[in-house]
């Protein structure tokens, strides 16, 4: 992964402002609405499948999809093995920090030896 971005700071600034808006709306609107009236059941039932679907899709992108050609890559063995390790560690410890640190160490060591 090389840093090839050529945006200037003003563009970055506007990205942050827009990022703030899209990050803020989903946090604020439900809070404002549902502290005053009841939550529709279907909305909750649907929304509870959103995080798991999205995170899985993002993991698949990181491990199996080439970031420039969008082709399928099935040979990223260090990442694949490290991912299995992280899943196990996350399941056992339920600790975010331990999972991330083990994941980083795992991928670092595995990519040296594989």
């Amino acid at each position, binding site marked *: *992964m*090389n*840093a*090839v*971005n050529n*945006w200037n700071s003003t563009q*970055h*600034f506007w*990205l*942050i*402002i*827009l990022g703030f808006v*899209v*990050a803020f*709306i*989903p*946090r*604020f609107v*439900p*809070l*404002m*609405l*549902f*502290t005053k009236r009841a939550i529709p059941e*279907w909305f*909750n*039932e*649907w*929304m*509870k*499948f*959103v*995080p*798991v*679907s*999205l*995170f*899985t*899709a*993002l*993991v*698949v*992108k*990181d491990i*199996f*999809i080439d970031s420039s050609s*969008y082709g399928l890559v099935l040979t990223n063995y260090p*990442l694949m093995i490290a*991912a299995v390790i*992280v899943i196990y560690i*996350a*399941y056992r410890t*339920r*600790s*975010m*920090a331990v999972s*991330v640190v083990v*994941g*980083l160490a795992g*991928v670092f060591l595995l990519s040296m030896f594989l």
Partner: protein
Amino acid sequence: MNKRRPNPKQVPDPTEPMWRSTLRVAMPLNLSYIPIGLACGILLHAAGFNTFLTGLVSLLVFSGGGQFLIATMLTINSPLLSIVLMLFFLELRYALLSSSLSPYLKGQSNRFLFIFAVSLNDENYAINYLKFATDKKWTVREALMVEHYSLLFWATSNVIGSLIGSALKIDLSVVHFALTSLFLYMIVMQLKSHLTVLICLVSAVLAAFFMIITKSTLGLVIATIVSSLIGFGLEELLQKKMPDSHWLRRLHSPGSKKSVVEHSDAN
């Protein structure tokens, strides 16, 4: 000596100032933000963000996933609209978090809700939800304080990461795996029934399929919408037709203390 020694963990000292008692609650989270924040700062620096902007984005967006996403998409030269759209879908999950916290924030002013929403995040949500659900004395002010502590640690680690990134040469593909690990962790924490495991697999296949077809990260958005709707539809169907189906059965999870948080979206 017949003086009774209170267990410091069980009996909180009533004279302890609020900033210290909330800091104690927030500390495990604060510490776990350090490695992720450092990694995120390094990546943002590599994506061209200067240190000031790295601090600003940490304060305003305050989302590990969101900031990693910005960094990654900038390095592959995605257009602004595409980044913002992807970010929107990534942050949409907060709608779920904030709606499940809303019963505890009834009667607060819109101004308070605004401040509370700005610094809401997956992890401080988990702490506050657990506290609200188990501790009757937990107040909204304490909850906000926990949010602010985590925000402070997050932004500081990001800024330090940005400075490290400018001083050292670092293998970014390794650092980027911090995000993948974070997502894997969050998936594991979300796996509550056999159905969610199935939806995981569905989403994985659909994500690969749609990304290859669309040749862009738009495939992620499509896969997320389609598989969450499949999960929603399947669950409705199963609950109506076969309520004892093993697909709806809860998964065993170690660390039962957290189970209160996992029930969060059942309300």
